[in-house]
């Protein structure tokens, strides 16, 4: 797991080893082109936001990357390997973790068990029926919970959590599966301003501490500003602009299609 290429430096960009690359990826639903020739490169350890109006194809793009949908055209490369059209669980095992737009926590399980499920997905411990958790695994799970501020809720069923806490739990779950790339679909949907800010900081901290590449779909402007980094704007299925927060925010065309309308 530790053969990562050097950190990609965005501005200089000589050493362009992309962790994820989509080449002209396209998805058609009948007459509708939901994702239209999207070519995107995400570097190792990069944190990037994707924004765009409702229905512009952001979630569909994620579904293509994770193998939930088969593309109508184009290729997807992960760590230089072509993963186009592979099965969902195989892509997941290669190290692409995803937080869905609708929180996918296990409601009937405790918060602790919710982390335990992805924690063992890497087969780090033989999945024997009589297997016990060693203390190190337990500590790691508790550290994960501490990171998402849910350690005190470890024993409660996940159904007891607030909306914001459920979103954090799911981020913790994705993290526990030790991905190399995290896809987060609207992690702050329905959160208060304070929760949104906390989530942005959490994601920034994960990015800085783990070096996991992160692709975040978001609508919330405050969140995008807090995250900083590179932004990709999608519109009608295609990439419309790429740039820094300032560039995007000042771009009149973007304001027209997106920012302006939401103010």
């Amino acid at each position, binding site marked *: 797991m530790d053969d990562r290429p050097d950190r990609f430096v965005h501005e200089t960009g000589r050493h362009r080893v992309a962790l994820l690359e989509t080449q002209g990826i396209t998805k058609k639903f009948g007459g509708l082109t939901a994702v239209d020739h999207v070519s995107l490169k995400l570097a190792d350890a990069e944190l990037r936001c994707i924004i765009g109006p409702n229905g512009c194809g952001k979630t569909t793009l994620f579904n293509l990357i994770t193998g939930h949908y088969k593309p109508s055209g184009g290729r997807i490369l992960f760590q230089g390997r072509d993963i186009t059209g592979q099965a969902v669980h195989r892509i997941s095992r290669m190290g692409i973790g995803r937080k869905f737009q609708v929180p996918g926590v*296990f409601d*009937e399980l405790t918060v602790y068990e919710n982390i335990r*499920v992805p924690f063992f997905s890497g087969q780090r411990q033989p999945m024997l029926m009589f297997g016990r958790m060693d203390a190190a695994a337990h500590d790691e799970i508790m550290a994960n919970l501490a990171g998402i501020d849910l350690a005190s809720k470890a024993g409660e069923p996940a159904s007891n959590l607030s909306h914001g806490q459920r979103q954090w739990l799911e981020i913790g779950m994705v993290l526990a599966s030790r991905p190399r790339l995290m896809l987060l679909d609207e992690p702050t949907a329905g959160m208060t301003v304070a929760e949104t800010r906390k989530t942005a900081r959490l994601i920034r901290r994960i990015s800085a501490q783990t070096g996991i590449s992160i692709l975040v779909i978001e609508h919330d402007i405050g969140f995008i500003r807090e995250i900083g980094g590179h932004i990709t704007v999608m519109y009608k299925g295609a990439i419309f602009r790429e740039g820094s927060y300032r560039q995007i925010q000042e771009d009149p065309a973007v304001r027209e299609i997106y920012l302006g309308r939401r103010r």
Partner: protein
Amino acid sequence: MSNAAARTLRAHPLALQLVILAGFALFPLAGDDYLVVELTQYLVYGIFAMGLSLVWGYAGILCFGHAVFFGLGAYVMALVSKGMVPGIGGALASGWAAMALAVAVVALFAVLLGYFLFYGRLSGPYLGIVTLAISVIAERVAIKWYYIGGYNGLTGIPPLSLGGREIIDIVPMYYLIASFAVGVYLLCRRIVASPFGTIVAAVRDNEDRAEFFGYNTAYYKIVIFAVGAAVAGLAGALFAVVTEFVSPTMIGFGMSTEVLIWVALGGKEVLLASFLGALLVRAMESFLSDVLTYYWFLILGLFFVACVMFFPRGVFGRLLAARPMATGAKAGGAGET
């Protein structure tokens, strides 16, 4: 039991389990052999119920044919220990070997069945209907098949022996079966508290999500299904020993629904609750069916409906439910009862 006492016991699950264990250990000292005979049978039903609790309560697989495994275990036990299976004789036909064979045959059958059910992605009502059909067919086959006793079943199953002594007296028999019940309980509890058990619960809760984490969900369902079936098969084999008798009713639809009722009434999400559910219903039936004759079934039906409506977690489910894990709990105990 007073509320305060119930609360105290709930806060100390180990104490509660020990109280229950002590109750069973001391029961024969009361000296009523008739009741000991009855209770021995109920314990076997309790083991059977724990098998279904694994499958239904923990894995969420609503199986309408669990008696197929119970009955199959009983028939294999009977046929092998009576030396009726060509090619299997001598030491292999001894009681213990027959019992091991019964459990193995049932587990294997369940793996095959599970393979078709779960890789075929059957779930919900379809799974229920298929398992129901299998239990009806199994009963028909047992009734029609002359060699295995047909309608009358098989009698004269030889007793087990331990240390050169045959276990015939009821009190040693009771303790033998009780030991099996404790052993099965500890084994099952260990399984549900293991990482494997957590994955099984996750598959029950949200199969797609579990699959997305890279788990082969069908595999987990097959394994837990086979374990639950093997437990039922063991119960069937023990039943054959205890009653010295097997019959087609043990394998059929009626028995399958009965075990569903015990487990639902007791509390399917909790092993011990399911176990006690079997004992409660059987004990009530034995006392009340004398008094109420066939009204008993009406009472049981009403009781069942009331339970489903007012105690969805069963009569014992809440009392015996695993206490939420304390955050500082030692690693090995995490999530255990």
